């Protein structure tokens, strides 16, 4: 559908034509690139002119926070300048955030004169400049800093790995209602797109659109995979642990995986649940069946076949038939915190609820080509 205009008020719904819409894929690229640019952008670029001993002026200041130059600049001694930023700086919407300077670069424009100079971040809000000369100068200072809301990535902008084009409102609801009202009242409404009659017809159509969207919103909130307003309730009901830094889409993904588990513990249900939880990282569910039951090494308690971690009481009792290995792709960084949280917190919780108590399970990490680096008993920690 068209993503803006009188017939399609916010929230913005993805999809539609290149001319009028914004596809999910295009939106995802935009959010990823904005997040990437934000991570490496300078905080401020400033040009400073000084007489070398008493007076320095910021002649140009451009920053991530916008607005005029907020710094104070003072000479501490000839050739030595201290620049100080205020504690809080507002963004374009007037929301104030603390700035924490991290690094700086300076080069002096002395024309043909050679002057050694340095810039050093001396505190969270100050930069110290030093020049080997007390002659007049022009310098460009590039500052890098932590500033703005905590960057959690694409989630800040509504991005998510499962983003897709909207299928329900390809033609804006308001426009459908607008046409419907015209058909109902015929020539009483006319075809004009200006004037009081058009305005009333559009306002009525938008009101009916809101009702229709409310019904769709209710349906979406009825399952966790598409819930927004009720997502917190879903997480509470499904006992999904949420860290403050978790983006909304990750919570939705975990809730959806847990919810899918209520279908039972068939291999198909486990595969679906793992796909939901692990996404692209999921490779396969591996069982340990053999053709003949007599080939099974069935253990009766007590036994030494299985690791004592599988002891559910009265010793270990299990068989090779009741073990499931979930294969996942290995992350590039073995200390990837998100991966460890996924496999050591989210995965065990889901499997514990998903499979019967007499089924043991583990996971192994592969390198993407199918080679198993770990086994259920070795696990990722053993690598």
């Amino acid at each position, binding site marked *: 559908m068209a993503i803006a205009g009188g017939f399609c008020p916010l929230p913005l719904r993805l999809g539609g034509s290149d001319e009028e819409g914004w596809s999910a894929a295009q939106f995802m690229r935009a959010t990823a690139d904005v997040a990437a640019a934000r991570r490496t952008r300078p905080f401020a670029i400033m040009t400073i002119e000084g007489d070398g001993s008493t007076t320095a002026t910021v002649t140009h200041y451009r920053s991530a926070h*916008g607005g005029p130059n907020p710094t104070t600049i003072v000479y501490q001694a000839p050739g030595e300048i201290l620049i100080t930023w205020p504690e809080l700086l507002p963004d374009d919407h007037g929301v104030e955030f603390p700035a924490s300077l991290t690094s700086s670069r300076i080069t002096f424009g002395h024309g043909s004169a050679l002057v050694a100079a340095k810039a050093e971040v001396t505190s969270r809000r100050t930069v110290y400049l030093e020049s080997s000369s007390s002659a007049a100068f022009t310098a460009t200072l590039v500052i890098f800093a932590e500033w703005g809301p905590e960057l959690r990535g694409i989630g800040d902008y509504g991005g998510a790995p499962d983003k897709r084009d909207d299928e329900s409102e390809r033609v804006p609801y308001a426009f459908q209602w607008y046409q419907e009202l015209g058909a109902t009242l015929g020539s009483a409404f006319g075809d004009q797109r200006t004037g009081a009659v058009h305005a009333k017809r559009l306002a009525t159509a938008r009101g009916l659109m809101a009702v229709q969207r409310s019904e769709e919103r209710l349906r979406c909130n009825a399952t966790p995979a598409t819930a*927004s307003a009720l997502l917190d309730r879903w997480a509470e009901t499904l006992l999904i642990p949420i860290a403050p830094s978790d983006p909304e889409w990750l919570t939705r993904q975990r809730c959806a995986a847990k919810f899918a588990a209520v279908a039972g513990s068939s291999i198909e249900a486990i595969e679906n649940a793992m796909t939901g939880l692990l996404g692209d990282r999921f490779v396969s569910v591996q069982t340990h069946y053999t053709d003949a039951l007599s080939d099974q090494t069935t253990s009766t308690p007590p036994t030494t076949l299985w690791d004592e971690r599988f002891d559910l009481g009265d010793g270990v009792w299990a068989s090779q038939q009741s073990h499931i290995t979930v294969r996942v792709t290995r992350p590039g960084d073995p200390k990837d915190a998100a991966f460890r949280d996924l496999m050591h917190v989210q995965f065990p919780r889901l499997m514990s609820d998903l499979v019967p108590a007499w089924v043991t399970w583990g996971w192994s990490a592969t390198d993407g080509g199918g080679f198993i680096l770990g086994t259920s008993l070795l696990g990722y920690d053993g690598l």
Partner: protein
Amino acid sequence: MTEPTGSPAWTGTADATTYGGHADKRDYQAQGVVNPQTDISAAEFKRLTADIAASARTAAFSRVSVTCVDPAGPPVVTSVWQMTGRNSSGYAGDAAPTGMPSAARGGDGNVLLTWATSYEDDYGVAADLTIRGVDVSSSGGIETWEIVSANSVRVRCYNGAAAALADALFTVTVYT
């Protein structure tokens, strides 16, 4: 064709409203998203526009790497990363491709870089170039810069003995 709002990024004039992030932007009837898999809320959209504006304001216009060919040859521009395009194949400073800066030798380790006076963005919207900030780093040298005009910058590289550095390698970043 629809004309985009505002001016190209290197004018540094954009704020969140340029990208549609009006201060009072809100979901219709304050109802939030219908389906989070397919929708973008007003709050998310506003964050997106504010961050685009912030990044556009502080982005460098051009980052150029140069190798001096002393004592006589024109400097070689080895790469250009610029808001309007890139060149990774390199070129002789006196034979710059369209849109890329030229580089003229002024002495050992002394190069005058000149850009066009005006550039067009991806939609063909033109805006003048006004260089206001310069950052230079060289390989093994000490460098200074001088804004000669709105679209040209002179870079000088020296060695540790304060003598002109022949065959200097440097990267200059210009901000507008």
